[in-house]
């Protein structure tokens, strides 16, 4: 059996071939995605328990940036970027050309990159709104 092209990675595999290495890279990328998702959920739970003024029921995730644990939110956003871009690579390496959507991959890349950008662009509010958000008696 021969490997005709990397895109036929599923069908004809020779151990040590380019297709095998591609599959191994895909397995690694998906492993990073899975571990990343578990870490993302754990970090989110921790981040939402830390600020006493924060309500996960009524407030957006981005509102965490306004408190003293804003740096943790930046880490969470970066993690989201890493796990979704790892997924993109896994999808690229681990599927055949027929099962791969180019448009889907472009949107997936945007979905993956933007949280990383948002990590350096936290949600901000004007000072009176910040005071309102953090000071219950002021509401």
């Amino acid at each position, binding site marked *: 059996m021969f490997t005709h092209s990397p895109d036929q990675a599923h069908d004809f595999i020779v151990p040590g071939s380019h297709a095998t290495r591609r599959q191994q890279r895909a397995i690694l990328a998906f492993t990073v995605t899975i571990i990343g998702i578990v870490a993302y959920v754990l970090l989110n739970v921790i981040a939402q328990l830390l600020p006493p003024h924060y309500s996960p029921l009524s407030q957006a995730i981005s509102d965490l940036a306004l408190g003293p644990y804003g740096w943790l939110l930046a880490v969470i956003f970066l993690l989201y970027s890493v796990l979704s871009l790892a*997924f993109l690579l896994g*999808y690229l390496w681990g599927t*055949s050309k027929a099962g791969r959507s180019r448009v889907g991959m472009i949107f997936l890349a945007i979905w993956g990159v933007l949280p990383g950008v948002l990590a350096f662009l936290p949600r901000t509010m004007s000072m009176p709104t910040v005071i309102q958000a953090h000071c219950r008696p002021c509401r």
Partner: protein
Amino acid sequence: MTTTLHGLLHIVLSLIAFVSGMLATLFIALRFSRDARLRSLRTPALLIALLMWPTFLLTDTFGKLGLYGVGERLFVGLGLLWLLIVALWIRRRLQGDASNRSLV
């Protein structure tokens, strides 16, 4: 709520990311039907991808009920669930291929 230009940019980019996520999951799920090995993944992936749309559109309604955080987390959670299921599925397939090779 008064938002600064910096904050407005954050909201706009978040919206682009959310919409991109919904479109990515949908396009990719639909494509699974073209690969015989991924065909069985199409239905669960498509179901979650489609569920993301009403969840996203209802976020504002959740907000009016004082549950904006719940709505947003439901949406993000569905996106993560989609990534997790697809990653686990394809990874298991690839590992199956690898173990079959080692038996040859």
